[in-house]
Structures are given as structure tokens and as C-alpha cells.
């Protein structure tokens, strides 16, 4: 790998990006999703996070243009130069330009927007070209047969981590395994791994969904046998490694959380004007993300779990209730201190914490069973 001369890099880890315009070759949400996936490629192996802006000057301005487009580096029509980008810095630095004269696609035909975007964003972060043919930062376009198998080469990872270091270690309670960092995108969780933990769990129209990394297991009503799917196969624009998910049955909607954003999905459709910011639910600015959530369909109350506390949201008045947060240990004795995911089923709450699951009887206010988290997957 190489970095730009004088090794320019961003002096902050939280970067903003803005998609300034769109190509007519693809639907907007496909472009949104390709750019988001391309940013996630780099976010997974560094401490960097990316926040989308919809107006004003972002660190990384992403646009489509043809021929002379105001930066003295005119594009050249179809083929040859596909796109270019500028190293970190103010103004047009960090920006990405795509040549609109290319045929942009979301698969292996034509010019795959995700692949080119991931490469160009490498430049926006400070990587120059690599002479390693396996590397994403190799200058000549190489399409992938199976895009789902795409991953950064070690050369790319070494390059970007030479600028920004590795991602922060998992939460302090999780064992730090001294092996080479294997980004979640490469892990393929095994349902009967006794150490299996979940990122999020939810019901969906009578089915059960168990989310982990890029995948989820689905336990349909008509079959006890869980099936594993890629999240992106059902909801292409959803991120992986979710934080929380819950269904509000009265609305036939599942709400899915990651970081400070949340989405509303109805079946496989993501509702318009989502994602929204979690603070629109009534969380204070100090809350950056939630760990788990579950909606009690009888009481029409939704519980949000953040570290060792929980909040209660009233679905009827659509507002966060007063007198919260409270300690999880007080409201749900025997559960916690931290919660990965929560499920309500058969009149119980099921709290998932690492590879353990606590069946909680809300009436008796006590834990009635402790199970393995993956017991629902018939292991």
C-alpha cells in the first residue's frame, strides 16, 4: 500500500459525508446503500465513523459528473478513468467524483458502484494506490464475481490502520482474543456455537428473528427449523451488527436500531423518511446508542436498555415516560447488568446477555430459567 505524499489523514475519527447528486443509472436508495456499504468497509477496520449530511459542506462530498467538472481533472467519457477522489483535507479535499459517462450498476456487470466507491473512499481517507493486485486500492478496476464475498485484503487493512489504527476493542467485559482482527464482515456465525451471542432479537408477524453480524436466523411459524439469511438480502440498506430490534404488533412494524439511528420496517419494506435519529424518541444527547429493546404488546409500553439502565416509552402517547432511566437490576431483578437483546414470547421476557439467556416472569418479577442464548435455534 502507499499513502499520499506527506501522508495527509483526517485529524478526527468522526467524519461526515454527503451524497450531493445521483446517477440516473440506479435508484437513489441503491446508491445510498452502495455508499453506506463502501464506508462500512473502512469503518469495520478502523475507529472511523461516518455520519451522513443532507445539506451543507461535509468532509466527504460525493458527486457524479462528466468531462470538465471544475477541478482541472476532466473525465474522459465511457471507460478509462471511472472516478477519482482527493486526500483528506478542507474544501474539495476528501471529495469523491464519479464519471457519469460510466454505466453504474449494483452487480458484477457494468461498473459496480459499491466497489469503485470503496476504492475512492480509500483515497478520501488518505490511501494512495497499492501495487498489490489483491488489494482494493489496486488502481485498475477488477470486478468481483460474488460481491457478497468481497472483503479488504490485508494490504488494504494494513494501509488504513497505518493511518488510523485498529477499531476499538469490544466492550471491556468481552474477552479480548489476541488473534488478528477479523472484521465482523468475515465472520460467519454458527448457530450452535455455545458461545453464540446475538446483536438483536425481535418478533416479526409471528416469526422470531435473531440478528448477528451481517446475518439473521429466522424461525418461521410453520417450521421449527431456523434458516440463516444475510440481512442485506431482505433489507439492502440496513447496516450489519445491529444494536436492537423490536416489533410493535399494533403497527405491524419492526423498529431496528444501530448507533444513533433507527429504521422502521414493515415486512421487507423500509418505511420512507427513515432512518431517524434516536433522540427523536426522547433520549437525552448523552445517549449515543441503545443496547436492546422490547415492546410489551399487552401494556403497549416499549422498554429501551442502555448499559445498566432502562427507559420506558409509551406507545399510545408516543413519548418517553417520566421517572426514567431506572436501573435494570431494580426493574428486572436477576437480569443484567448489561443486556444484548430482549424478546417477549409466551408471556415471558427473554433477556440475552452474551451466550446466556434469562427467562423473566414479569408478574413474579423474577428469573424463572437460565438458558443458552441459542436454545431457540434448536441446538
Amino acid at each position, binding site marked *: 500500500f502507499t499513502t499520499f505524499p506527506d501522508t495527509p489523514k483526517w485529524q478526527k475519527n468522526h467524519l461526515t459525508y454527503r451524497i450531493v447528486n445521483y446517477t440516473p443509472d440506479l435508484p437513489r436508495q441503491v446508491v445510498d446503500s452502495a455508499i453506506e456499504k463502501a464506508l462500512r468497509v473502512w469503518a469495520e477496520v478502523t475507529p472511523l465513523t461516518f455520519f451522513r449530511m443532507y445539506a451543507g459542506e461535509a468532509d466527504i462530498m460525493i458527486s457524479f459528473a462528466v468531462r470538465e467538472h471544475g477541478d482541472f481533472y476532466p473525465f474522459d467519457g465511457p471507460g478509462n*478513468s*471511472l472516478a477519482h477522489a482527493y486526500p483528506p483535507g478542507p474544501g474539495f479535499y476528501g471529495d469523491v467524483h464519479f464519471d457519469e459517462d460510466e454505466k453504474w450498476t449494483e452487480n458484477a456487470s457494468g461498473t459496480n458502484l459499491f466497489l*469503485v466507491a470503496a476504492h475512492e473512499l480509500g*483515497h478520501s481517507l488518505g490511501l494512495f*494506490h497499492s501495487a498489490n493486485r489483491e488489494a482494493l486500492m489496486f488502481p485498475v478496476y477488477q470486478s468481483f464475481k460474488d460481491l457478497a464475498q468481497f472483503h479488504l485484503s490485508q494490504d488494504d487493512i494494513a494501509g488504513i490502520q497505518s493511518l488510523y489504527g485498529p477499531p476499538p476493542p469490544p466492550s471491556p467485559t468481552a474477552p479480548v482474543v489476541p488473534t488478528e482482527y477479523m472484521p465482523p464482515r468475515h465472520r460467519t456465525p454458527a448457530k450452535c456455537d455455545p458461545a453464540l451471542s446475538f446483536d438483536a432479537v425481535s418478533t416479526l408477524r409471528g416469526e422470531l428473528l435473531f440478528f448477528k453480524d451481517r446475518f439473521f436466523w429466522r424461525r418461521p411459524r410453520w417450521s421449527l427449523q431456523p434458516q440463516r439469511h444475510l440481512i442485506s438480502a431482505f433489507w439492502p440498506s440496513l447496516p450489519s451488527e445491529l444494536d436492537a430490534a423490536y416489533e410493535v404488533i399494533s403497527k405491524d412494524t419492526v423498529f431496528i436500531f444501530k448507533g444513533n439511528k433507527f429504521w422502521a420496517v414493515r415486512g421487507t419494506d423500509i418505511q420512507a423518511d427513515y432512518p431517524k435519529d434516536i433522540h427523536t424518541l426522547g433520549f437525552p444527547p448523552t445517549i449515543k446508542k441503545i443496547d436492546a429493546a422490547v415492546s410489551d404488546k399487552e401494556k403497549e409500553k416499549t422498554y429501551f436498555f442502555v448499559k445498566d439502565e432502562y427507559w420506558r416509552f409509551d406507545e399510545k402517547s408516543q413519548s418517553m415516560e417520566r421517572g426514567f432511566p431506572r436501573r435494570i437490576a431494580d426493574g428486572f431483578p436477576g437480569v443484567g447488568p448489561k443486556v444484548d437483546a430482549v424478546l417477549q414470547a409466551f408471556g415471558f421476557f427473554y433477556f440475552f446477555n452474551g451466550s446466556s439467556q434469562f427467562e423473566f416472569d414479569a408478574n413474579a418479577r423474577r428469573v424463572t430459567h437460565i438458558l443458552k442464548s441459542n436454545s431457540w435455534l434448536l441446538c
Partner: protein
Amino acid sequence: HPLHGAVKEEEQKTMELAQHYLESYYNFGKEEKQIFRRKDSSPVVKKIQEMQKFLGLEVTGKLDSDTMRMMGRPRCGVPDVGH
């Protein structure tokens, strides 16, 4: 001779493509007015070898078919060397 003219023209095109490629991506001396007078002049050969090495081609210093094919493939517009 028409054949000779056609070959000449083809060669001219090859030279122009290679010159544009090396100028765009290998910092080939715009400022030093290095002109592609003869593709076997040493600065040109050096630049061709630099490009072949970076792109993982056999370093022949010549505009052989592999090199021409690689230069014809779609790529990123950011240079491979230099500022």
C-alpha cells in the same frame, strides 16, 4: 506503401495512448517536455518499466500487448505515483 502507412498510424495511436497514460498516472514529465519522440529513449523506457512494475506486468520497457491491454482497462483516475 498503404500497409506501411497503416502500421505507422497504429503505432502513432499506441504512442499517444501510452504517453497520455504515463502523463496521467506516472507523472511522465509534462514540465520537462519529455516528448515521446522514440519509445526506446531512456526516460520513456524507464517510465514504461516503472508502470509495468507497479501494475505487476513483466518489466520489458516495451509497449507489448500485455502492457497495452492493461492500459486499456478501466481504472481509477488518481495517479499511481507522484503528487
